[in-house]
């Protein structure tokens, strides 16, 4: 079907370049999925000589047990010398291979796009998908500057994580299955960012959710993992409901669902348009589901049950940022809906702070990173919410670098911890920071790289995160006066006040980020080691196939900021605002102008003050953590006392999961079971109406049968009485 590729948009500068083959970008990972999936099934259908049950428990790590106390359920079998999967060699070649090919192609397209200086998106129509009535939805790919950036991030970071996985997952019996899922994920993710209309984007949107479900529950034989996967999918579906309704509204009002069509229609709307506001709010519901914002963030921390490279790829670098991409993609719509923009920014800011508070008191190293991701996603939403799309996308990119590095680094740590515990058949939690400590002596490379990422996320100057975070905060501050946002209001609160509040929340989140990240580093790498006497000699650096990608990410985390240096640097350390100029044709021209309106430019003094404040906050956070936290005083998890007071509340995540369970899950199940099923279905309809009418019929039948005595005498009496009655009736009428 792909051969049907007709060549529309001839005349587009990209039409005759390598961009023609852009359909190969998603198709390559799809082929990888088919191939690996086939290998996986073939192997599963003909299990090897080793007992698969014993072997399959022997995997790299054990999901989220940090605070579930389910240590017994780990299922550490002693048969831990499982042979590698028979087709592992082939899978190791195909799995990362297709990604590298995709990345190479993406680079080629990028070069072509740079050369062509396109103003309009290049749309590659493959075939008609759902043509009926007024509706016409094509399977079409859209290449523009925004989708290009996303594609490069996905295939680039994706490649690194695939390579890392070769080492991390090598002993897992589900090795081909793992790469099949991972390839499929990349396929859907590329579809998400390359789709030229909302429905196709939705295909990718749900597809990545599906892969996330499959990968979170990768070690499905533990109930907690399977539960986490299911939770992720269902919560995401709540968001998808919003996305669907937004599409309905678009089609009903604009008659089209393609990006180009919607953009054109949105351009004709007035600022404050009710339709645009409704669409944007529903879109944001979708984004909040996928990107784990309040109140739908609850699935992301649980999603850490999946293998750590999955957390890095899906739950940090790519999928969870899809919501940010969605908002940026719909920039023209959001530009005319300042109320919705304020909502996005406010929810983002609240999420950033809320998640950061929880991150302060987690012991599971991946949980810390998970809440940190939720918090940073909130930051991105603040950026795109206030119409600073470049800033949002910039932070998305730098976050992809340093958070992928943090996750993969933690993966290295967990890998080492797990190996060590494995050697001694110890069943301690390999992810609990209380069991770590002093790892810098055992894993120096990981230690150094993780500090780079930590400084980046904390916002220390020169590191990538500093530039992107600062740009978001500056953008918020700049819009407090004169922009459409400042004019608008939310729940009666004027936009200006809200923007100041959002700025303050952003600073608070930055402070806490610095604190909890330093805390994580201190407890993991500094102080004395708490792993155990017997295990300590076994702690060592992961193989190069794993540390190699870490080094690349470390470099990117360090220099990623140069992609969009602020104007104020004046070109002293490099060309300024590269990304901003690159994205200008997509999100700059229309949307930004509408939002900014008459906004006055910030003076240099103000800008320096803002930067100074941000840096001070970051340094203060790190200093506070170094001053207050004493890694030496920590005891291993099994001897640790229970948390008390506010620490307990934070550690237990504000009891949000419990509240949802009590307020939503249980009532729904209860009402469905007792009222709908037992009550209405079995009771009212079936019991009363259906079986009731049967009973009534039978009752009448029984009454009739009572007259049938079988005695001729009775019948004779009835006949005579009947005759008399008839005669009587005649004589009276």
């Amino acid at each position, binding site marked *: *079907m792909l051969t049907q590729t007709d060549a529309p948009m001839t005349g587009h500068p990209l039409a005759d370049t390598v961009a023609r083959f852009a359909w190969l970008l998603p198709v390559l990972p799809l082929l990888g999925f088919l191939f690996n999936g086939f290998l996986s*099934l073939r192997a*599963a*259908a003909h299990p090897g000589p080793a007992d*698969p*049950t014993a072997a*399959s428990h022997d995997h790299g790590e054990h999901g989220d047990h940090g605070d579930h106390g389910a240590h017994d*359920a780990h299922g550490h079998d002693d048969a831990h010398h499982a042979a590698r999967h028979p087709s592992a060699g082939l899978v190791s070649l195909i799995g990362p291979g297709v990604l590298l090919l995709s990345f190479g192609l993406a680079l080629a397209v990028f070069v072509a796009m740079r050369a062509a200086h396109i103003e309009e998106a290049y749309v590659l129509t493959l*075939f*008609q*998908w*759902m*043509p*009926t*009535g*007024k*509706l016409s939805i094509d399977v079409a790919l859209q290449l523009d500057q925004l989708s290009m950036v996303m594609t490069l991030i996905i295939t680039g970071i994706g490649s690194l994580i695939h390579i890392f996985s070769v080492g991390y997952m090598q002993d897992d019996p589900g090795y081909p299955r793992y790469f099949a899922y991972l390839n499929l994920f990349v396929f859907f993710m590329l579809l998400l960012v390359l789709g030229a209309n909302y*429905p196709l984007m*939705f*295909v990718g*949107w*749900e*597809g990545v959710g*599906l892969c996330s*479900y499959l990968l979170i*529950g990768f070690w*499905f*034989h*533990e*109930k907690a993992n*399977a*539960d986490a*996967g*299911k939770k992720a*999918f*269902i919560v995401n*579906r*709540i968001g*998808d*409901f919003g996305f*669907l*309704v937004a599409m*309905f*509204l678009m*089609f*009903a009002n604009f008659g089209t669902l393609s990006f180009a069509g919607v953009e054109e229609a949105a351009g004709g709307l007035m600022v404050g348009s009710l339709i645009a506001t409704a669409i944007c709010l529903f879109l944001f519901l979708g984004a909040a589901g996928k990107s784990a914002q309040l109140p739908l963030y609850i699935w992301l921390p649980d999603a850490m049950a999946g293998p750590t490279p999955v957390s890095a790829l899906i739950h940090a670098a790519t999928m969870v940022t899809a919501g940010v991409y969605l908002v940026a993609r719909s920039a023209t719509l959001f530009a005319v809906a300042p109320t919705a923009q304020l909502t996005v920014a406010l929810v983002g800011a609240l999420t950033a702070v809320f998640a950061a508070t929880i991150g302060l008191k987690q012991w599971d190293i991946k949980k810390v990173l998970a809440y940190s991701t939720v918090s940073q996603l909130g930051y991105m939403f603040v950026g795109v919410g206030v119409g600073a799309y470049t800033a949002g996308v910039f932070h998305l990119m730098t976050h992809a670098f340093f958070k992928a590095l943090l996750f993969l680094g933690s993966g290295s740590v967990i890998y080492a911890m797990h190996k060590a515990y494995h050697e001694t058949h110890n069943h301690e939690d390999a992810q609990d920071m209380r069991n770590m400590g002093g790892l810098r002596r055992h894993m120096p490379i990981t230690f150094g790289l993780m500090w780079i990422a930590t400084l980046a996320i904390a916002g220390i100057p020169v590191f990538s995160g500093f530039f992107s975070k600062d740009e978001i905060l500056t953008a918020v501050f700049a819009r407090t006066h004169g922009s459409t946002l400042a004019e608008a209001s939310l729940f009666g609160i004027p936009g200006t006040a809200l923007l100041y509040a959002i700025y303050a929340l952003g600073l608070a989140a930055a402070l806490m980020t610095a604190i909890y990240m330093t805390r994580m580093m201190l407890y993991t790498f500094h102080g004395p080691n708490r792993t155990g006497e017997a295990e300590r000699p076994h702690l060592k650096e992961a193989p190069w196939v794993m540390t190699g990608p870490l080094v690349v990410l470390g470099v990117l985390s360090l220099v990623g900021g140069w992609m969009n240096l602020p104007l104020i640097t004046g070109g002293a350390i490099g060309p300024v605002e590269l990304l901003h100029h690159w994205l200008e044709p997509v999100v700059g021209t229309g949307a930004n102008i509408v939002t900014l309106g008459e906004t006055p430019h910030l003076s240099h003094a103000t800008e320096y003050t803002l930067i100074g404040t941000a840096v001070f906050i970051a340094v203060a956070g790190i200093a506070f953590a170094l001053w207050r936290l004493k890694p030496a005083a920590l005891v291993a998890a099994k001897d640790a006392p229970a948390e008390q007071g506010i620490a307990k509340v934070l550690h237990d995540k504000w009891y949000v999961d419990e509240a949802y369970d009590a307020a939503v899950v249980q009532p*729904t*199940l209860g*009402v*469905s*079971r007792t009222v*709908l*099923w037992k009550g*209405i*279905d079995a009771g009212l*309809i*079936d019991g009363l*109406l*259906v079986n009731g009418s*049967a009973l009534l019929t039978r009752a009448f039948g029984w009454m009739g049968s009572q007259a049938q005595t079988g005695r001729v005498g009775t019948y004779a009496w009835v006949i005579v009485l009947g005759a008399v009655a008839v005669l009587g009736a005649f004589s009276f009428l």
Partner: protein
Amino acid sequence: MTAFLESISYNGWILPALLGLPLLGAAVLLLRGRAATADAQMASDRRFALWVFLAEAGLSLGLWWSVNVEVPLWQADFELPWIPSWGVSFHLGLDGIALMLVLLTTLLMPLAVLGGWTSIREKTASYYALLLILTTGMLGVFMALDLVLFYVMWEVMLIPMYLIIGVWGGQRRLYASLKFFLYTMLGSLLMLVAIIWLGTAAGTEGVPNFGYDAVLNYTRLSDAHGSVWLFAAFAVAFAVKVPMFPFHTWLPDAHVEAPTAGSVILAAIMLKMGTFGFIRFALPFFPAAAMLPAVRTVMLSLAVIGIVYGALVALVQPDFKKLVAYSSVSHLGFVMLGIFALTTESLQGALVVTIAHGISTGALFLLIGMIYERRHTRLVDDFGGIAKVMPVFSVFLTIVALSSIGVPGTNGFVGEFLVLIGSFQTQPFYAVIAATSVIIAAAYLLWAVQRIIYNPLVKPENERLRGHDLNWREIGLLTPLVVAILWIGVYPKPLLQKTERAAAKLIQYVEDVRTSDRIGRIR
């Protein structure tokens, strides 16, 4: 292909041939000699039945090319006088919508036979003969262009299904089959009254006329098209079959008790009789009545209640077959929503859901049958960790469940999306409520799938399933279904094109009659 079909005047004889072949097969099955042992009998019966069904499927394939959906005439038209003095004729014909349903039926039947390949061991000759007669009945319903013929076929398909559930069913088969029979009968008798009324009224010079076109013409020109009573008589018959809330309680019982093939046919094809009835009869005959605000509100409300209610009740079902049965209530609610929202997109979506639900739910019931044969239980909580011992089964279950949830890329999504986006144009309120079921659908199916194939493998009975993964027969019969699921999900265009014209025509017709000046004369 078209030229070849024309050269054998395929359109001239194909419809009666499709009706006759299964009957002939049934007669041969029942009349031929008995084999020496029960096993030999079973083997020979099922092989014979499979060949007949394959021949039927092969024969019907030509319709894909021979039926020209662009022409506003009945295709493959076939008419013989039957009871001329009553104005009843043996009139068969197809349009794009009926074409898809006929093909769904003929292509699914061989798979249904394969699904019960080893589980049906008693009275095999009668069993397969009943399946064949049932096929004739179902095809007849989709082809009939005479109201009496339609009614006869409607009843013809009822009795074999009653017997299939009642004889080869599970523990409570008698209760279930009787309930199924009485429920359906209640509706169809009302319909019979309406048919007689219409046929008599449409006649000329004292001779009734039960021809579809004649009746349609009559209702259009008289004010019968606004008769709520006639509409209700048809609507109840079809609503029971769909089944719409609150006429749905026969379905879970019938599904749970029916043998695998029975469940598959019931869900995949027989429920579609109801929605087909609305599209072919109830709406075109009584457009003004159906579009009365009160009537439409009732129908839309029942559809949406069915969607949400079915999904919520499915959430708490311990029996997997019952869960799927309630999910059918939910899915068929989408079809009804699509029909009564009355836009081309929504009606097209309803037709895609019709086909998609047939494939996905059919596949689900086949999968349940397969695991039941191995484990002799359908209770979700009896399973757990099956993915470890039956990986191929788990892959199939996952794909089929995802299509039932409506994940994009599968057939379920195309249908639901079109229904919802189409309905939203005219009925935003109902569409939004219906859309919430995407959340509940994910919850009930994923939860059930998780409890079956994921979670720890602790029960020794499940441990014993190791090495009993799907065999080649089962893989072979599921593969075409999965291919269809993905094909319709990725490239539904051929399907949509086949039904586009018929759907647009119906919408146009209903709109025309509704907006014409006659609307004032509605009783």
